[in-house]
């Protein structure tokens, strides 16, 4: 009986992230528009876009291979699995031990690997430019992320996200320099990974500066819908990760009962809204940087992460 309950909870988490992801994207867009004194599209616009894309035919380039058609589903599935394993409203879900934080980071690495391949499949110059820049950014962002993971794991003594979130909400944490460094590095990585300003501009098209949009330029119809929802899921994943690790209050523990879950879900919604608002605020306040400034930005994140880990190697209490 408990097994069925656990499975239902895990299923609820999978559905929750899937349903909320476009909402978060729409919310960020809306806030950005209001900050620029525009009205902006309604927050549910991403759902409408997805439905419209799903119903349309796919226009496939003549020399697109089978890989080009498989990749959208693959990256959607991998991102979805990653997002479903992050603690959102509760920790200790039945499959939470399947993949720890390192595995989730690597899972997102596979998403990027295949997306870059998709960019190169048709053999256009835009696809190549996007793929080449994406792997350049990732080659610095991924080590930075691993360093953040090291810092968190050394503080909590575990790379399991549920354990991590549990430890972070306990009074044993205290205020630590290393965690502050890790938080800044994590936010910088999250910005780069989600192709947000100042690294990339999610709203741009047909510019030589774009990275993510250049890779998916040849996609249309349901394939594009899959990629769009995977991008939304990735944003949700990073916001949930930051919220779950650094703002773990309100998280329900496993077997906490319906009331705890309801509180956890409400707290999660509040955290998402706050995260989305801050992201929109940050994006409107800053200009996009040149693409060759990005490695310096990511290098700073790497150094912060490394410093955080180093501090913990020197003393476990820093």
């Amino acid at each position, binding site marked *: 009986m408990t097994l069925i309950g656990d499975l239902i909870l895990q299923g609820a988490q999978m559905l929750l992230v899937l349903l909320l992801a476009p909402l978060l994207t729409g919310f960020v867009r809306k806030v950005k528009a209001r900050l620029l004194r525009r009205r902006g599209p309604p927050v549910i616009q991403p759902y409408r876009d997805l439905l419209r894309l799903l119903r349309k035919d796919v226009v496939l380039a*003549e*020399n697109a291979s089978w890989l080009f058609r498989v990749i959208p589903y693959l990256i959607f599935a991998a991102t979805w699995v990653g997002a479903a394993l992050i603690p959102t409203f509760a920790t200790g879900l039945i499959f939470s*031990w399947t993949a720890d934080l390192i595995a989730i980071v690597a899972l997102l690495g596979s998403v990027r690997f295949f997306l*870059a391949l998709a960019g190169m499949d048709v*053999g256009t110059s835009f696809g190549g430019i996007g793929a080449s820049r994406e792997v350049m950014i990732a080659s610095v962002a991924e080590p930075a992320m691993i360093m953040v993971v*090291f810092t968190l794991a050394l503080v909590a003594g575990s790379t399991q996200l549920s354990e991590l979130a549990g430890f972070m909400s306990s009074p044993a944490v205290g205020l630590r320099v290393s965690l502050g460094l890790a938080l800044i590095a994590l936010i910088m990585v999250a910005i780069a990974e989600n192709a947000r300003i100042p690294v990339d501009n999610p709203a741009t098209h047909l510019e030589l500066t774009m990275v993510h949009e250049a890779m998916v330029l040849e996609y249309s119809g349901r394939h594009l819908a899959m990629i769009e929802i995977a991008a939304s899921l990735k944003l949700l994943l990073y916001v949930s990760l930051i919220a779950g690790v650094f703002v773990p209050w309100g998280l329900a523990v496993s077997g906490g009962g319906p009331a705890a879950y309801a509180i956890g879900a409400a707290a999660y919604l509040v955290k998402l809204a706050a995260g989305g608002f801050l992201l929109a605020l940050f994006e409107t306040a800053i200009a996009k940087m040149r693409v060759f400034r990005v490695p310096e930005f990511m290098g700073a994140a790497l150094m912060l*992460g490394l410093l955080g880990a180093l501090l913990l190697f020197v003393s476990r209490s820093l």
Partner: protein
Amino acid sequence: MNSVSMLLLCVAALLGLSVLAVAPVRTRAVHTLIYGGALAVSLIALGAAVAHIAIDGAADSTAVLPLGLPWLGAHFRIDALAAFFLAVVNLAGAAACLYGLGYGRHEEAPHRVLPFFPAFLGGMNLVILADDAFSFLLCWEFMSLASWALVMAQHRNPENARAGYVYLVMACFGTLMLLLAFGLLSGPAGDYGFAAIRVAEHGALPAALVLGFALIGAGSKAGLVPLHVWLPLAHPAAPSHVSALMSGAMTKVAIYGFIRIVFDLLGDPPWWSSMAVLIVGGVTAALGVLQALMQRDLKRMLAYSTIENVGVIFCGLGLALAFQASNMGWAAALALTAALFHVFNHALFKSLLFYGAGAVLTATHERDLERLGGLIHRMPATALFFLVGCAAISALPPLNGFASEWLLFQAILQSPELPQWGLKIIVPGIGAMLALSAALAAACFVKAFGIAFLGRPRSAAATNAQEVDRFSTAAMAILAALCVLTGIMPGLAIDWISPATLSLLGDRMPAQTIDPWLSIVPIAQGRSSYNGLLVFLFIAFSASIAVFAIHRFASNRIRRGPAWDCGFVEPSPATQYSADSFSQPIRRVFGTLVFRAREQVEMPPPGDSGPARHLVEQRDLIWDGLYGNIAGAIGFAADRLNYLQFLTIRRYLSLVFLALVILLLVLAI
């Protein structure tokens, strides 16, 4: 019959095949006989090695042959470590034989490959079996020479001749270092048997020296920076199945030599020696993958990537040494298991990737990435298997490369408990280097697959490529399947490695196969766990749901049209991104420092319709800085000494007399 005599018989059979291949008959039948026979023998050897591992607590089996030094004889022995490496080598060997059955038919000069191929396989087996220093070095040299002959298979190409020369020089240097290491180990008594060396006491300074010599000697064969220079020349020069064996198996034999000397024979080296191993490993990993990214020759790129993986493995070994010196047996077992698991994984996917490169070479006669493209349409099977190899070597879950990388990261996370400050400071840096090289490896293999197999064909050869024969695809399919299987069931592999760590360190990782759902739990469930099987199932499940739901309820129609590319489609395939342009951003980020890369753009003046020129200049600082200077110094000394050849008889006589006096003085003192 015990397993060591079984394996010695296998080696004898391989050497017999070698002799047979010298026979002057040149028919298809000889070719099939050699590769088929070697395949059967390798499979038997693999079975014997696996049986030795699988029988829990199998006793070491030994044999003494009346060969070699008269008072010593040739000792052979299989313990858990040897059995593991024998399994790796013979698995790679069997796959190479299967691949060779098809690939070897296109060989221009089969009589330059066929006799040496089984000898090379036999040599690698013998090194692992050897149980005294004399036979070890003899077999080591035999293996080197057999592989050298294979590198020189197409000796008319001046590049290959140069590769063979550099390889020979480096191999001699490496063996010299190993000779010194064994000399120190056996001490003044000169007992070369491993059993005697193992029980002997070694002081702190000799132990550190032995470790240094072993690191240089075995490291030069494995490809550690800065002794790696021969590897990217020699490995690609050989026929592709031999390249696969050299990268997949021979570097592992070198790693075996290092483990045997340092972990088994030496006992307890001081803790600070582990720092040297860690630093060399980390630098090797990062530099190897950066070099790989800059290559446009597919096989040379794979060779540089081997250097990276060897660096990763040595990082694991260095961690194990550090933990062992501080008596943290469980952590040492974790690090050593990670290193050995990566040894196994690398043998699988690097062989697979070299077979893929060989298939591309057969189909197009091209190794240059800039002249490939679009092969996924012409060679669908090769493309699929090569993609699996690329994903595995890029450490993507749920494949096997990730599982070993994950274990290594878990080992690094145990290192704050080390008491030494030097290690505390460098280990996070090593972790960052490993993460950096994993990310760069992914970039490198996006480039390899994306440029060679995706996009539009960049040459006529790529346009007209044909899928390769069934033997080649079968070899690739088996290795790709093994990559996936080990990736989703890593616990099985870890349990098979445990006897080796138990015999070397006296400690092992907890048994993994008893965990529910086959997850791997290095220390405790609360600290970390990973389940490749479930990750694989979840991804497959979610992807199928998405495909089913969308095709059922939304749309499943497809229209084909010209590529969009913002409306600027230019029909020439030259407008695509090339291998060099793909790596340009990374070259700008890292290359200015590491390769002194300089870019120069020459634009024609306005009104001139001539082409613009983009020049890139980059240097190999190790080759220029280190080897260039050494070669210069040797040349300089030779020039000076040349003077001695033109002396008068009186001066020669006085030189001889002087030498005699000095020798007498030395003896007197």
